[in-house]
């Protein structure tokens, strides 16, 4: 049973089409992340699901009920905003109770629900405070609590961690994941532009660009088998290496580029092999150096340009043929700029894209 289902959704502001014929099915209890750069329509889609924006065409179902024309309060959703959006003149308790009072929930029921939410989120000592007396992390917890007390099936998060500092963000991220596990059968839809948040939290990620979904898959697939060049470039930090070249398919498929010929025998093609121009994507951490590289089907020597130590590992910048090439080695490396090093990679872990359509081959 789908918890949230979006069919042929269109949204346009005047002549600008923000969402184009969008279809999306989200399972009950799923944690779905909408990921994309700013302006891709991810927040707009969330606002449509919440009922804060009227759609131009299409339908939205929540828990198998057509809610396309329903008011936000009748959709069975709770929403958490980036700026927390706590009512400044009310205490934390007042903030939590506001929605319930509007829904005319009996007083003792409100009290029990607030107590339960406060326990889950560890905000019991803060209940009598005003939002201005809370830290960023506490405020966001209260905002989550406001969605929690409503006892809804679907949680909508609009970049909830973007206003927090890096350390707090990591902490709250884990807490969110724990909360999702704790609240079984609660669907969460989470909008972010931070790929780490997306990869760590999601059951499935929907990567969006210009109002349409590019790929909808679990984080592992998104990372290892990106469906097109955009997804490959968007996911991964440091980003994927892209090598221009062409595929030739005489006896066995090979990839010709300026730094040599790469045997594609081990590569799993998504489509029948066609000769032609293509782009090979290699993740920086799939590159081996030294003795390990010698054992791989493709290896070559490169000169190190820049060394970027990052603590746990080190990023090395070089050029491979005509293209810039980055690879990752352990943090304890003693490689220095100017040195020559042997690198190699296995095409099985790489991704091939058509030069024209930019789709995965």
């Amino acid at each position, binding site marked *: 049973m789908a918890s949230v289902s979006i069919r042929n959704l269109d949204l346009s502001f005047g002549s600008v089409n923000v969402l184009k014929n969008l279809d999306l099915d989200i399972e009950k209890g799923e944690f779905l992340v909408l990921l994309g750069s700013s302006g891709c329509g991810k927040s707009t889609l969330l606002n449509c699901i919440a009922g804060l924006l009227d759609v131009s065409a299409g339908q939205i179902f929540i828990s198998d009920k057509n809610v396309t024309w329903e008011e936000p309060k009748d959709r069975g959703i709770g929403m958490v905003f980036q700026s927390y*959006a706590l009512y400044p003149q009310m205490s934390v308790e007042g903030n939590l109770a506001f*929605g319930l009072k*509007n*829904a005319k929930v009996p007083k003792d029921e409100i009290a029990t629900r607030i107590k339960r939410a406060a326990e889950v989120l560890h905000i019991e000592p803060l209940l009598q405070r005003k939002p201005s007396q809370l830290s960023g992390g506490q405020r966001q917890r209260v905002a989550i609590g406001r969605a929690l007390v409503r006892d809804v099936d679907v949680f909508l998060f609009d970049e909830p961690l973007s206003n927090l500092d890096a350390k707090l963000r990591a902490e709250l991220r884990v807490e969110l994941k724990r909360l999702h596990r704790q609240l079984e059968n609660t669907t969460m839809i989470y909008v972010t532009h931070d790929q780490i948040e997306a990869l760590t939290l999601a059951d499935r990620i929907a990567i969006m660009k210009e109002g349409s979904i590019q790929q909808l898959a679990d984080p592992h697939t998104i990372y290892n088998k990106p469906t097109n060049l955009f997804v490959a470039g968007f996911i991964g930090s440091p980003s994927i290496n892209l090598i221009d070249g062409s595929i030739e398919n005489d006896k066995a498929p090979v990839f010709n580029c300026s730094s040599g010929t790469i045997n594609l025998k081990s590569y799993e093609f998504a489509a029948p092999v066609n000769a032609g121009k293509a782009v090979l994507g290699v993740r920086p951490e799939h590159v081996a150096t030294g003795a390990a590289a010698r054992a791989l089907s493709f290896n070559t020597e490169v000169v190190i340009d820049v060394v970027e130590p990052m603590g746990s590992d080190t990023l090395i910048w070089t050029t491979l043929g005509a293209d810039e090439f980055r690879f990752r080695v352990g943090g304890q490396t003693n490689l220095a700029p100017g040195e020559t090093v042997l690198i190699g990679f296995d095409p099985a872990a790489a991704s091939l894209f058509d030069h024209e359509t930019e789709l995965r081959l």
Partner: protein
Amino acid sequence: MSDPTLSSAGAAATVGSPGLVSGPAGPRPRRRFSRRNIFLYGTLFVIAVYYLLPLYVMVVTSLKGMPEVRLGNIFSPPVEITFEPWVKAWSEACTGLNCDGLSRGFWNSVRITVPSVILSIAIASINGYALANWRFKGSETFFVILIFGAFIPYQVMLYPIVILLREIGLYGTLWGLVIVHSIFGMPILTLLFRNYFTSLPEELFKAARVDGAGFWGIYFRIMVPMSLPIFVVAMILQITGIWNDFLFGVVYTKPDIYPMTVQLNNIVNSVQGVKEYNVNMAATILTGLVPLVVYFVSGKLFVRGIAAGAVKG
């Protein structure tokens, strides 16, 4: 950098303080009686005196008896302080047939100002809220037309409104004037409120909608409690504006409900008998006292409200 102490100090910088070398250190010294300061404060002083002098003359004159006024030394302080002119201005001065002073006009003005302020602010704040948060088809056009109203000179609309009020039977009544004031306050107040509500975070409004609050629920329980500064600004604008109004007061009311400003004019400009400058001065100060008090009491809030749009908190 050939100085050996300096280079060694640089090398030791990571370990401890190398100590100060001679030369500028800490805050830059400033001279209190610099040419700049003398010029600046001198100018401010002269301008302040220039503006305060008329007020001084008024206060001084109002405290003199008529024989002293006739001497003509308008700057000299009163030899014999008397509050007689103030009492006379408040409760004895004659306008037309009535000789009960300005007190009648004062209470008329109160009865005009209070409902006008409440009515205009209530309507304008709801207007602004609807225009800022509940955009409807044509809301921008509506707003532009409303703002355009602020640029039409009042004189153009005087007579049409006379006819309008006559037709609905409110001409010459207190409520007619209240309605006129409310209408003319609408453009600027709506603009004020709309801009303020637009500056509030939109997500608050969205959160309240998800929480199930409707049009009025969001207005009364979310927006109004957050908008005290702008309500104070609106009140100050309206109280001073309506209190100081002369034109509408004289056009749309009858003598027994003339506002204070109109009555003041009638007292000061009465042509019979002696010109009692001291009474006139006292009457003028009395009339101007209300806006003055409003400014003094709420000055701080006023500034905060004006600045509120710029600073998000």
